[in-house]
Structure formats: C-alpha cells, structure tokens
C-alpha cells in the first residue's frame, strides 16, 4: 500500500508537471501563434450539437 501510494504520488507529479509545461508552451503570452491571440466571435458548436 505504501509503495503504491508513493508510485501514485510520483506518477501524478510527473503527469501534472508535463501537462503544465505543455500548457505553458501553448498558452504563454509570448507564444504569438494566431490561435493564442485574442480574437472575436465565439462558435457555439457544442451548444448546437
């Protein structure tokens, strides 16, 4: 049980760290990808689906 917990802890830390880095790279204000720029008009595809 103890080792299981430690494993979960490290796996989670690794996973969350990886997600956070990906999100940082995608959404950093320095990333000037057009998709990262403020734009207008929202699409309600899901609302309509």
């Amino acid at each position, binding site marked *: 049980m103890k080792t299981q917990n430690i494993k979960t802890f490290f796996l989670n830390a690794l996973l*969350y760290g990886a*997600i956070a880095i990906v999100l940082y790279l*995608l*959404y950093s204000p320095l990333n000037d990808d057009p*998709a990262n720029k403020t734009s207008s008009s929202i699409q*309600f*595809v*899901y*609302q*309509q689906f």
Partner: protein
Amino acid sequence: MLPFSSYEFFIIMAIFIAAIAACKFFIADKNYKYVLLFFNALFLVTVYPKPLHFFLLIAYSYFFTWLISDVLKVQKKIIGILVLLLPMLLVKFDIRFDFYPFEMNNLLSFAGLSYASFRIVGYYMDKSPNDRMTDIPTYFNFLSFTPTLLIGPIDKFARFRTSQNTGFSSINEANFIPGWNALVKGIIFKYAIAELISRYWLNVFDPSSREALHMLNNMYAYYIYLFFDFAGYSWMALGIGKMMGMQVPVNFTNPFLAVNPQDFWRRFHISLGDWLKEYFFTPLYMFFTRKKSLKKYPLTRQNISLLLTFTLMGCWNGFKLNYILSGFLFGLYSAVHNTYVAECKKKGKDVVFGNMNPAAVKFISIFIMFNLVAVAMYIFSGRCPLV
C-alpha cells in the same frame, strides 16, 4: 464569462467545490439541494452573461409544464413540446419583429439555451400526469447545474434527482479522486490535445481548397479535433460535478472504435443519442408501429423513423444545409445498417461478410464506420467546400 472559457473559471469552481464541501459539516443532508441552488444561482448571477434570460427561461418552462400537464392535462405531448421549445425555435428560425429592428436572436438567444431546452423537454416527457410538479429548487438545479450548463451532458431528471438526494454523502474521497482524474483527463483532451490538433493540423490546410489531400486532412483533423474538444468538455463537467457531489453521466467512450452506427451513438455524445432515442425515435416508431396500415412494412417504418430522427438532430443544430445534410447522412447510415441487420436475421447469416474471421470483420467495420462518421462530421463542420 462562459464556463470553461478561461482559467479563472476553474478558480471559481475550486472555490465553489471547497465551499460546498465545507457546507457538508454545517448543513443537514436533506438541505444539499438548497446549497446547490445557492451556488448555481450565484454562478448565473455573478459570472454568466445574460442571467435574467436564464431565470426567465426556467420560470417559463416550469409554468408551462405545470399548466399543460397538470392543469389542462393535454394528452398530445407534441403540443407541450412545441410550447416549451418556443424560445429556441424563435431563435433558430431567426424570427424578426417589426417593432424591434434586431433579429430575435439578440433578445432571446443566450449561451446554454439549446441544452436547457433538451432538459426541459426531457422532464416534460418523463413526467406522468399523476406526478405532482417537482419542487422548484430541484428543477432549477436540474436546468442550471454549473458544470453542465453550457455543453451538457444532457442529464435525465430522475437520475439528477437521485444523485442530488445523496449529494453531501457523495462528497468523499471515493468520489473526489475519480472526479479529479476525470477533470485532469478533460484538461488534457481539451486544452492540450485538441489545441495541438487545431493549431498544427486543422488550421494548416485551407478549408476552401478543393484539393483531395487538403480535404482529407481537413476531414480527419476536424473529426479528431471535435472528439477531443467535446469529450474534454464532458470529462471536465463530469469531474467537477463529482467533486461537487453530483453524478454526471459519461458522454464519450472511445467512439473511434464503434463498429456500427448504433454502437457509435452509444459511444459518441451518449446523452444526446439517448435523448433522441427516448424522446423522439421511440415515440415516432411507436406511432408508426401502432398504425395498422403500416403493419406489413416493419423495415420501412424503422428506416423512416431513423432518417427522421437524425434529420431532426441536424435541424436542431440550426436550419442550415450543412447541419441538415450531416444529420440526414447519419440517418442514412443507421437505416442502411438496420436494413443489413434485418437481412442477416432473415437469412440467418451475415449477408455481407459471410463466414469471415470475426476479428477481421470487426476491424473492417471499425475502419468503415470511422470514415463514414468523418465524412458526416466534415459536412457538419461547414468546412467542406463541396457543400
């Protein structure tokens, strides 16, 4: 601010979850619904755009459900449905009034209207004339539960109420951890995978290009993007819901592995598939089956019902050619599959694949289904230059 539109939403949700969990220690179990009511209303009032519209829609639907089913006792469900859907139909048909030069859209449309309408009709259809109207807090929560407010899943009233009754006792470790994991999964799907697909695949090819390679790329990219984006939303809603003590139905289970249209709608946007099946397909097919004149043509009435159901789904998205066509296409897939199944039953053998290895049949089915769905979604997206 709309739900899930920026990271601040998650901060607000974290505050809400912590506050609801804290209430568990001070407030009796049976009063969970009032706590939920408070936070749902708080979200609508403070964060949501056009809260008044939403409150009015809830009041409108509650009043008319009561009037039609309890007071007037209207037998024909269709009349009630039309009355309850009136706000949404006005918006979808873009009806204008002369005294106000804007489209009705401006006055009536607000985020979440379609999903609220699904739930309103669901409640009305499930309610028996002998049942009394449910209490207002539960009804309000059912329509305005924050995580599912904007993009579903479409819960069923009975399931929602059962879950609400055990609200506080569901806030525990056994629910929190799966909830948290679902939220993480949703975040990966929506904010990492879907965003990567959108930036580096979907938006690379010009949607108006008619070159086969570009169209194929657009088609697959859109389908895969749509799945990750939409499934991401659904998992996040499920996760946040669980952490608040509510069970939100699962909306996606590997649609890419679907072997036939029926299987697909049990994996992709499950709650919509169930809704259409229960409140549209079943009554419609029942109507046809009860007709003596159609007795001899079971296959015809099944296929017509399927086509109508999915075309309605297309219309629901909006009265535009691409939506209706994609709905019709989904209907066609289901009708063809239904005919095939009926033939197999009649002949007692598989009329297409014969005695082929079941694993191979499954593989081929998955491949065909994946491509058919991708085509229909491509048309749905409005990015197809041929439509």
